[in-house]
């Protein structure tokens, strides 16, 4: 319990230091409106990296799998969504408008997804209060069904904007499905290898994905990438009055606010999901497999199944990160998904503490905080334009320096447990 409190304090402290520090730099900037929006932008980037690191945390921290190709799953999510939406938009959007069978099927699908979400959430609450399991499930199912029917009825028939949003939604599903399936396939092939070889195999896989996105120009536009990807959050924020009012009140851009809120929401949901699983017997089995696969097998646990599940969950989270990424920048190019992104994710885990989901979030805030703080240093008066041009390398050096310091002074990471670390295998 006390340890849990300490971890939350570290998280809060990191937030205050990083965003407080960035605000201080902001105070020197003449443009008041941009300052808050800039912080929101940093928050969005942090959220994307936190999602990536959370995915890796399940794979490495809990299942003990070294996935050096994590970025590929982010790329698959991003490209899966972007390619579908942009290439199929002209065919799909008209087909979804008005009273057509396809429109009906897609609306039913979206409504069911929404209904399932409501069901799942309601079940969490109902399970706490209802004495009997059937009652809880009944209440949750009724709510889910009602939500699905209501959502379906309000959506049908789709107008042009609705059809586009539905297409984007399909793209999201396709992106996540592509990445999760790839996780399954890579797992089935790679998990038969010994641990370190999995790392090499996944690194190879990420290179394959990179080269495919670069060279399959018919599908991906090659090195030019895909521009002007529809940004549903961005569009929503520019068209929603209360969002605009709220943003005006806080003196930020509504789009930045909506994006950051979406990112933080995704991280929060992912964190709660993973924590629930980690504290449950499922997480216990995963930890046992990480500790000693033979022992887990001798206790009747099917290690391959659990590792596949961990890989698929990690890949799905990476895909969500990828989709948030393209929604943030409205474009996607192969160079967005270089191996360095994977290694930043690893650095985040090492900084925060391997085997602790809070560590993934702390690490993401810290790494990105250091980057941004270092970048802002050049706005201090004694730096000239000449210095600013060379600001890139010192940023990376600073991150490296902090990493070395953490590994030396706190090898268990900022929120990791020293005892767990020292026991090792």
């Amino acid at each position, binding site marked *: 319990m006390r340890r849990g409190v300490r971890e939350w304090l570290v998280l809060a402290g990191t937030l205050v230091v990083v965003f407080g520090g960035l605000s201080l730099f902001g105070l020197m900037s003449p443009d008041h409106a941009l300052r808050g929006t800039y912080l929101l932008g940093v928050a969005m980037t942090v959220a994307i990296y936190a999602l990536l690191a959370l995915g890796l945390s399940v794979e490495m921290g809990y299942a003990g799998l070294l996935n050096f190709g994590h970025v590929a799953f982010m790329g698959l999510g991003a490209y899966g969504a972007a390619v579908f939406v942009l290439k199929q938009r002209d065919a799909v959007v008209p087909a979804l408008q008005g009273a057509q069978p396809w429109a009906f099927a897609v609306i039913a699908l979206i409504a069911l997804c929404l209904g399932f979400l409501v069901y799942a959430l309601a079940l969490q609450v109902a399970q706490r209060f209802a004495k009997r399991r059937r009652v809880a499930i009944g209440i949750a199912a009724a709510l889910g069904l009602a939500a699905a029917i209501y959502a379906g009825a309000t959506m049908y028939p789709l107008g042009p904007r609705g059809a586009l949003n539905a297409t984007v939604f399909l793209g999201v599903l396709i992106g996540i499905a592509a990445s999760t399936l790839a996780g399954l396939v890579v797992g089935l092939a790679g998990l038969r290898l010994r641990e370190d070889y999995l790392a090499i195999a996944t690194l190879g896989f990420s290179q394959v994905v990179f080269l495919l996105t670069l060279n399959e120009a018919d599908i991906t536009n090659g090195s030019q990438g895909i521009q002007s990807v529809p940004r549903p959050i961005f569009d929503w924020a520019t068209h929603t009055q209360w969002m605009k009012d709220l943003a005006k009140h806080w003196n930020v851009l509504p789009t930045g606010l909506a994006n950051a809120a979406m990112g933080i929401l995704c991280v929060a949901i992912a964190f709660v999901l993973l924590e629930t699983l980690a504290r449950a017997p499922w997480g*216990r089995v995963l930890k046992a497999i990480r500790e000693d696969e033979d022992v887990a097998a*001798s206790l009747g646990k099917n290690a391959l199944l659990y590792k596949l599940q961990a890989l698929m969950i990690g890949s799905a989270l990476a895909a969500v990160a990828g989709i948030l990424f393209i929604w943030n920048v409205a474009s996607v190019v192969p160079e967005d998904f270089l191996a360095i992104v994977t290694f930043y994710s690893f650095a985040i885990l090492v900084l925060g503490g391997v085997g602790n989901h809070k560590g993934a979030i702390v690490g993401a805030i810290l790494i990105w905080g250091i980057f941004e703080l270092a970048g802002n240093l050049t706005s201090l008066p004694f730096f000239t334009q000449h210095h600013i041009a060379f600001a890139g390398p010192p940023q990376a050096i600073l991150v490296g320096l902090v990493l070395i310091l953490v590994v030396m002074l706190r090898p268990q990471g900022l929120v990791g447990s020293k005892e767990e670390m020292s026991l090792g295998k």
Partner: protein
Amino acid sequence: MANEGDIILETVDLRKQFGGLKAVDGVTLKVRRGTLTGIIGPNGAGKTTYFNLLAGAYRPTSGKVLFEGQDVTRLAAWRRARRGIARTFQLTRALSRMTVRENLMLAPDGQVGERVWGPLFAAPQVRHEEEALRRKADEMLSLFELTRLADSYAGSLSGGQKKLLELARALMREPRLVLMDEPMAGVNPTLARKLLDKVEALRRERGITFVLVEHNLEAVFERCHPIVVMATGRKLIEGDAATVRAHPDVIEAYLGGAA
């Protein structure tokens, strides 16, 4: 069904070859339910390989393993475990970065919370199950006098305590057959005696069958019946302590060709 004295485990002409080395070279053996069978033999006799063939860690080159009359030769270790075979390891393998209690609660099969949807969609059931598991684990801990270590990391236990933990963990699964690989290696004599007393009591009271591979001959002669002697990958002889002790082949196997 489970009659005292029927055959629980059987191997038929079991062989395992590593390259040119015939580690296990045609072992046929029947283990009766409710016995404490000891497997002895000099170093390199193939005991541990044979043991791993029984547990499913290795696939045999040829031959069969039958558990309760069913062929389990092709089953992976985890599937055999689910049939009711538990094992301990030669070098203790506690799950270090998990607490002693977690080690025990992990062991039983069929936990709803172990499935990925369980914790999310059947939370009350999982909570209920965990409470029951916790009680069961605490009973097992008090049986093995490990209660005060319940919340320590398993990695911080002494060698002997880890052996006890391994046995307790295996028993959490309510197995019908327990395979123990050198349970007394590296354990002080008092604790070793305690361990064997536990095994004996469990055999008598719960009818669990034990097969142990052991280097401590005195303990095996004192406790096990029957005793199986292996040498150069084969079963040399099988019988009670007196028969085995007197047999000339056994003396030769242990002393080498010189005797």
